């Protein structure tokens, strides 16, 4: 995995040497700042509400859906386009190292981006407010974990195409689909369960079971249930970590498949 670190290091250096990363950072900070201030004023100076708005609110999820795929498109699809992927894939590092290295770099960048919200909390504290530090840190940690899933998913989509823009689009779409998995699941259950159940009671029972199952798939609920409240629950950690690992695995396999496709 030494190779992965070398690649992650180069990737981060590359990100911060290009204007792309700085512009993205600037835009996000600017808009986040506006939202934070607006919510702070609107809620009559409630620091926690304002912090929630930028770290877990609707806008935040919007960012979260948009940014990782945009970033991930740079990581692999862009390299396919410029041909440097050929260089990486003939370097003495495994495909997994390449994927993991890029994943670490992308996640590192997003961590820097989300850490800006911590500055608000610090600023508020200095201004005399009392932010709920466990919630703030928990939310930050959770944010990074959710980003990890999205970056991994974006990377996977990036390996499917050599067109960066298409990769970004696919990434956003895939992230939306992943977020809405419980919804799609329950829709599907609605259709399928009546076909396999033999009584109305059974339908209800199975639906309840399916719903319970699907509830476990709900990323937003996972996020809100623990991190946002300042609780570090290992089961939540495992949830996000295993999804990330799953998508990274798919990305690695897809990269390998590229070689066969030529």
């Amino acid at each position, binding site marked *: 995995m030494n190779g992965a670190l*070398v690649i992650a290091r180069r990737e981060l250096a590359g990100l911060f040497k290009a204007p792309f990363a700085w512009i993205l950072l600037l835009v996000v900070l600017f808009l986040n700042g506006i939202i934070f201030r607006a919510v702070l004023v609107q809620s009559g100076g409630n620091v926690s509400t304002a912090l929630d708005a930028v770290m877990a609110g609707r806008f935040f999820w919007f960012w979260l859906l948009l940014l990782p795929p945009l970033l991930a498109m740079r990581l692999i699809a862009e390299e396919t386009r410029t041909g440097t992927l*050929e260089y990486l894939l*003939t370097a003495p590092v495994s495909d997994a190292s390449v994927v993991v290295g890029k994943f670490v770099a992308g996640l590192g960048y997003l961590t820097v981006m989300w850490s800006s919200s911590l500055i608000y909390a610090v600023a508020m504290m200095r201004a005399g407010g009392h932010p709920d530090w466990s919630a703030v840190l928990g939310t930050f940690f959770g944010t990074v974990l959710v980003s990890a899933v999205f970056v991994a998913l974006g990377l996977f989509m990036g390996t499917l195409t050599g067109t960066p823009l298409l990769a970004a689009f696919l990434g956003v779409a895939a992230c939306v689909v992943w977020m809405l998995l419980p919804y799609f699941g329950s829709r599907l259950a609605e259709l399928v369960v009546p076909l396999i159940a033999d009584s109305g009671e059974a339908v209800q029972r199975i639906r309840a079971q399916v719903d319970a199952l699907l509830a476990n798939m709900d990323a937003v609920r996972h996020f809100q249930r623990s991190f946002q409240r300042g609780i570090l629950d290992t089961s939540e950690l495992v949830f996000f970590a295993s999804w990330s690992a799953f998508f990274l695995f798919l990305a690695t396999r897809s990269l390998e498949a590229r070689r066969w496709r030529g």
Partner: protein
Amino acid sequence: MIEVAHLTRRFGGVAAVDDLSFSLERGEVVGFLGPNGAGKTTTMRILTGYLPATRASVLRVAGHDVLRESLAVRRRIGYLPESVPLYPELRVGEMLRFQGRLHGLDRAALKARVPAVLDRVGVLDRERQLVGKLSRGLRQRVGLAVALLPNPDVLILDEPTSGLDPLQRREVRALIKGLAHEHTVLLSSHILGEVESIAERVIIVHRGRKLADGTQAELIEGLAGSLAGPLAGRAHVRFEAVVGDAEAAAALMRTLDGVARVEVGAKVGIHHAFRVEGEGDLREDLGALALTRGWAVRELSHVKPSLEELFMRLVQGDEVVVSSAGGNVSSRTGAARAAAPPKNGPSDELLQLGGGPALARPSAAPGTAAGPAVGRVIYSLNPFDRGAQRDLSKPVQVDGPLPPPSGSEQVGGGA
């Protein structure tokens, strides 16, 4: 160093590489020659582990199996793809250090190796420059430096001079030539001159198949031996001069020792072109003859058969297979085809020379004004001839003593 046997790679239904076998010894420099789409790049990508082979009975580089020990192979290969993939946002030094770290070099090794390699390719002064701002030629050098950094056993260079101007091309060629002593080099090109000047041994591929493999001399010899026909790669002397009666001059040339065949080409202006075949370099003999006869010589050159002719024949005809052993040439259908054109007729090459419309000539026919005596009169339309400053409508005197004519008298006498 490189062993490949029965390598096949398919893309869909198309075989990009079809049953290719070859091997490279340590320290060999081999040129991989073929037109675009011949399967050169695919073969190289397979060797570097970028693409897997569809089928191969042996595929080893530096003693390691390419498929099973891919990482070990990749550690021993310096690969420069045709597109020279470098990260534009990095500086030259950073790019090299990245490559070094990927290859597991430590800080001390990097410190010693990076300047050494940059110096080697002649871009030491560019270490701080952004890769994205480099010119094409410098990029190529940096790419070469990147490939060289881990001091690989095998260098695989895909079209290392493509996209360069002639000067850069020559520099890069010289650079690669210099590397030949330390590394086993496999380089591809569709430009013959390049392969001819760098690589001793050449593998010609076309449509994924190996057409020829051997040293240049072997290939040329093999071809010349087996292929008759106007464009056969045979050494000959090109002789162009004002001779008066061409047929008579040719007959005279045939009497020279060692001359096997003389073909008379077309007439350009007042010059006749001849193609003289025979043993060795006949330039001196022809020169001496010209001097004795007083022919005004415009060209006297030894034309060695080039790899280019061989290449064109192989690629266009897709018919001749030259095996590596001793450069034997075996023809499948080609011999018959190649032999078809008239053997003794003027060659295509010579025909082309005389193909243009005849230039307007001065009213006086060449050679009419004088016999075989001193001060024969010749015309020249070539402004670089010694008669350039004269009035073209008047005959010119060629001074200097002429030896008494020998041989058939009518040659110098003109028609």
